[in-house]
């Protein structure tokens, strides 16, 4: 095996392949935002931003920023033709009501029961949950996007989260820089191994229980 070097782009690249035309997708701040760069040209997804818009467009050209048009990270953005704006109650009505097909968000920990922790480390960092708890509880499909390892080298895929949960039993899929996992409720099922890694190496380097899917694939990113 080569030496592990964290690779966020591969995570974004793989997640972008989940979507079909017409899907409503919320991309969280940070790593998930990269997913937007890899959505195939032939697929038209509708990006929702929880601060109150659907039809999120690309960054504005320098000088084209509008102080009244930002994403949930406070960054200047644009809106595509056919997009629209709404207030926060409506925005979270859309989210909680199951009208967002996929939410993609980063994690501090994710476990094999589908629990996810990403909003605080007690005594250390308490940014708050923002919209994450609603997004994870309300979206049809929840994709956790994360590098496979913490800086310490520990795996982020846990048997049981130790940090305060963002939501219980809501995660459907986990995509790391090693592979794509489905959460079964009692284990992570490895569906795709990303070259050059192997299933054995991934299992050996993951704290949680990993099972191999019957139709496991090897994916060679472009």
């Amino acid at each position, binding site marked *: 095996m080569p030496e592990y070097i964290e690779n966020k782009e591969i995570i974004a690249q793989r997640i972008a392949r989940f979507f079909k035309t017409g899907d409503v997708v919320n991309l969280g701040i940070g790593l998930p935002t990269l997913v937007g760069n890899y959505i195939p040209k032939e697929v038209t997804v509708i990006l929702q*931003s*929880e*601060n*109150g*818009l659907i039809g999120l467009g690309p960054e504005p050209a320098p000088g084209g920023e*509008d*102080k*009244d*048009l*930002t*994403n*949930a*990270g*406070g960054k200047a953005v644009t*809106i595509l033709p056919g997009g629209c*704006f*709404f*207030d*926060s*109650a409506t*925005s*979270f*009505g859309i*989210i*909680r009501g199951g009208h967002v097909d996929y939410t993609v968000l980063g994690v501090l920990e994710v476990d094999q029961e589908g*629990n996810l922790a990403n909003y605080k480390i007690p005594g250390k*960092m*308490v*940014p*708050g*949950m*923002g*919209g*994450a*708890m*609603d997004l994870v*509880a*309300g979206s049809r499909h929840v994709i956790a996007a994360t590098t496979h390892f913490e800086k310490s080298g520990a795996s982020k895929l846990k048997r049981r989260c130790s940090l*305060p*949960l*963002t*939501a*219980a*039993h809501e995660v459907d899929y986990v995509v790391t820089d090693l592979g794509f996992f489905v959460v079964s409720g009692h284990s992570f099922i490895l569906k795709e191994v990303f070259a050059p890694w192997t299933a054995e190496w991934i299992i050996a380097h993951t704290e949680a229980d990993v099972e191999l899917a019957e139709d496991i694939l090897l994916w060679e990113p472009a």
Partner: protein
Amino acid sequence: MIAKPVISAREAAALIQPGSVVHIGGFLGCGSPDAIIAALCEAHIGELTIVCNDTAIYDPKTGRTTGLAPLILNHLVRKVITSHIGTNAETQKLMSSGEIEVELVPQGTLAERIRAAGFGLGGILTPTGAGTEVEQGKHVFEVNSRKYLLELPLPGDVAIIKAKKGDRAGNLVYAKTARNFNPIMAPACSLVIAEVEELVEIGTIDPDHVHTPSIFVDYLVTA
């Protein structure tokens, strides 16, 4: 329709009592009533409980602030009820030192609690937060075999909100994502002060385009 008083930001600040519960519109500073916030700092109206999506942005390196961050930096806040404080390092510092109490509320729950206060509901059942720390101390109900938390209304003494355009009656129109929490805060508070970028005559806003009906607004500030 009745015209509402158009006052200065300083006069607006003078209407707000120290110790009030103040709802403040904006999302990381986008759509915040910045002139009224500045006037509150200048008048040093303190001991506030603020209800807000986030405590906006404060960058300790550059000193740059957005939205209501100056209220935190000026030590005017005793308690914050909010979904996010991660972009204002000072909030977390004052929370750790015990100066500020922080009640973290999921963003969608915050929105519904504010709406419930304005719209006469005794509470709402949300699935958000079930199985997390947010569940603690709350009634849990099962509806169609899903767990829901009962979340209670969150009214305020004062709302300070920001609109793109307002007519003299108080009808408001927001621009783009600067809408966010502003429309739901107006009904939830006893006293509502709207900061508008553009003040227009009554009858010039299409009644199908109004986001906040005039009856929710008590005072207008132009900024």
